[in-house]
């Protein structure tokens, strides 16, 4: 199949890559750009392990074609920490034991990252609803909720400071 050149911004850096028109973004990220933090857990857009941020929206990269991100901005878990400093969401997951096997975690955190920008001061129910596109088999979500509450507090206090 004829490949085509696309360019986009990945975690703040411009990248160029040659893709088949049918290639899924998750495969481009993992196979070609070696960003293996985003995972594949299903092929039906249910599990959310492949969640990344695309132009300020959460998307499941297993149902986005790589060609669709041409000229756009993608943020993955690898871009969450800035200059070696963990993002409050990352910190929250560690402090509140919001992960076990770690497989859902990158997608879960990328969704939390976006969700807290959509709703900086969420109730527990709002968190549970806002995160319901991402599945976790290990934690039962209770500590994920706490992790997001932790991050929300930290982000708000940083804003207030």
């Amino acid at each position, binding site marked *: 199949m004829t490949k085509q050149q696309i360019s986009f911004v990945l975690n703040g850096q411009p990248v160029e890559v040659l893709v088949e028109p049918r290639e899924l973004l998750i495969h481009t990220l993992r196979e070609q750009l070696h960003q293996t933090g985003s995972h594949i857990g299903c092929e039906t857009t249910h599990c959310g392990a492949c969640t990344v941020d695309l132009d300020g929206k959460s998307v499941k990269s297993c149902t986005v074609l790589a060609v669709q991100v041409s000229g756009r901005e993608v943020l993955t878990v690898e871009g969450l920490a800035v200059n070696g400093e963990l993002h409050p969401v990352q910190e929250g997951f560690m402090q509140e034991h919001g992960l076990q096997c770690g497989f859902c975690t990158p997608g879960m955190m990328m969704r939390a990252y976006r969700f807290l920008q959509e709703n900086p001061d969420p109730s527990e129910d709002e968190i549970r609803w806002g995160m319901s596109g991402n599945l976790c088999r290990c934690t039962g979500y*209770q500590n994920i909720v706490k992790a997001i509450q932790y991050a929300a507090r930290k982000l708000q206090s940083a804003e207030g400071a």
Partner: protein
Amino acid sequence: MATSAETLEREDRLGGIGCSRKRKEDPRFIQGKGNYVDDIKMPGMVYGDIVRSPYAHARIKSINKDRALALPGVHAVITAEDLKPLNLHWMPTLAGDVQAVLADEKVAFQNQEVAMVIADDRYIAADAVELVEVEYEELPPVVDPHASMKPDAPVIREDLVGKDEAGQGKRIHDNHIFTWEAGEKAATDSIFDGAEITVKEEMVNPRVHPCPLETCGCVASMDKIRGDLTVYMTSQAPHIVRTVVSMLSGVPESKVRIISPDIGGGFGNKVGVYPGYVVAIVASIVLGRPVKWIEDRIENLSTTAFARDYHMTGELASDREGHIKALRVNVLADHGAFNSHAQPTKWPAGLFSVCTGSYDIPNAYVRVDGVYTNKAPGGVAYRCSFRVTEAVYVIERMIDVLAQKLDIDKAEIRRRNFIRPEQFPYHSALGWEYDSGDYPTALDKVLEAVDYEGLRREQAEKRARGELMGIGLCTFTEIVGAGPSKACDVLGVGMFDSCEIRVHPTGSAIARMGTITQGQGHQTTYAQIIASELGIPSEEVEIEEGDTSTAPYGLGTYGSRSTPVGGAATAQAARKLRDKARRIAAHLLEVSEDDLDWDVDRFKVKGVPGQEKTMKEIAWAAYNDVPDGMEMGLETVEYYDPPNFTFPFGAYLCVIDIDRYTGEGKIRRFYALDDCGTRINPMIIEGQIHGGLTEAFAVAMGQELVFDEQGNLLSGSLLDYFLPTAWETPKWETDYTVTPSPHHPLGAKGVAESPHVGGIPCISNAVNDAFSHLGVTHIGMPHTAFNVWKTIHSLGLDKRDQT
């Protein structure tokens, strides 16, 4: 002796047993730097993808590879014909049966592996799968295990025709695998014949799937020059896999290296050896290139592992006061097309005979018959010890049925039958020795915490108004930590586990175990055990598992083995080193060993303040100044063969409100008290309990692998197979008591499976309790809104004109 503030401070710095240490694993996972099997890339690596049968039962008339092989980028199409010369088209199973690696002339379940395509990338491989032309002749499928045992049922396993056994005793039908019995039949029957009260109920634990978020897969790499085979694999048991791979491939075990990298959840799914692994290994040997095979979710749900499919008839005999005199259980166990259950070889029904539960039942008899059907093989224990979920379900449901018949409160009937604390060690009628327990205390603590009587009053008021509210109880006992090698083996290898500790000259350490974490946090908790036992801060202890070339041999992580067996090995290894350290300290301090006291992280001379040697100092001395005749270094390995299983227990209570018109159930409250003996890391324990309860919720309320009459799997993707989201998952309340195991070096029992095992019957009992005043004795799982509504509708409760 009072503990000084200084001692407490040193203990605190160690980060040992009992502290909620943050996880050592987390920094890599939260930064996207985990290393799961699909993250592994090797030079020259190619991809395998599997051609699968659309039919549940069919003869293969022909396979044409030509069009697939003509596709650029395709390297090979492997079928059973290609494996035959290597004698690898069939493989032995852990249960004494054989399983087709690639279908040999016929297929026996839908999505069975027929061929593997090897190609440059996964897109080409997927294209080529579509180009392999397989011609089938359909055969009548058998999906129901009862139908499978009918005299005229189609024969599923033609390879076994005329054979009166399939590895686990006598067969009585072409589709029969084994009969397994425990207990005294005649004595039990006679108790039932003369009993004042008997109850009987048929119940099914539906076929479900563990469905970890990461599917199964491997990267097999044969280095033809060195003759080494390295396989990265999602395996919960890498060492036994190495033994099996060596036996199957003929490559010496010393030349096989299995590496379990980070594993994205297991829950039993990753215990077995699946055809995809075998074919990828063969392909790598043949091509001399690394071959990656990663299953997709549909393949995962439809072929690798299933759990349960237990069709049980439970019976209890009691007196009029509800004192149970006997238990009788008959089970039809659907094992699918091949008996490749992953469980100790000599236990075809696993540890199901723990089904007398937490109760002092003097007589019991159990019979399990395993049968073949045209469904996927590869049964596993889904977040439980082998068949323990089924065992706990049948006794916990039956005791409710008995309570209902006698109109005795469901908490009270449990109290009347509990094994009393003073009866431990307790010998059950079916042959187990329960190590320790205090069931009444656990139950009372829960009842008080939730105001049980208040809940029952509320329920009575709601019933009077026609509302449906259920209160479910479950007072379960598990059996975990397989197990004593005299009782348990896998293909002849005893089910011990191991730990090797090496203390470096400057006092930090590395330890390796035969187990493998899949999210349980071993890198955190094993280091805590070593910290407490050896006085080295947990932050300075590195834990490695999963690489068979470096870790000592062990049987892996499943059936809550890690803490009971691996944790015991770790404690014992650390104690061996502490004994050596004591001898070195005595030498350095020029005193007798008996003059030394161990104090957190150092040896002190009795009665002489200031005369002491810390572990750091002793570690240094171990490499330059040891007593005459002592071997240098501070390193040891322990292979721990447990004297018995451990028996964690708990008391759970669930309150559910059910919508009278839609059948929708909402768990309002779930209170879980667990007793896992000594608690190593309370934060991790609580996390494990949350997760196990959520998986219990999934099973009780929605999970089922549903088949139509043709053997088509109807719930083979996450569109149809229920995995709860944050939205529907209830909030969990946890509590604990501590009753240490007397035979475990630390008193620990294992915990992660208890919430699954105890949670399922608790939720199911709650749903059933909501209808028990209406004469309903048993509603089967899963308790989906539709299934519950069917009961509601049959009772006429959903009529709007009713008040």
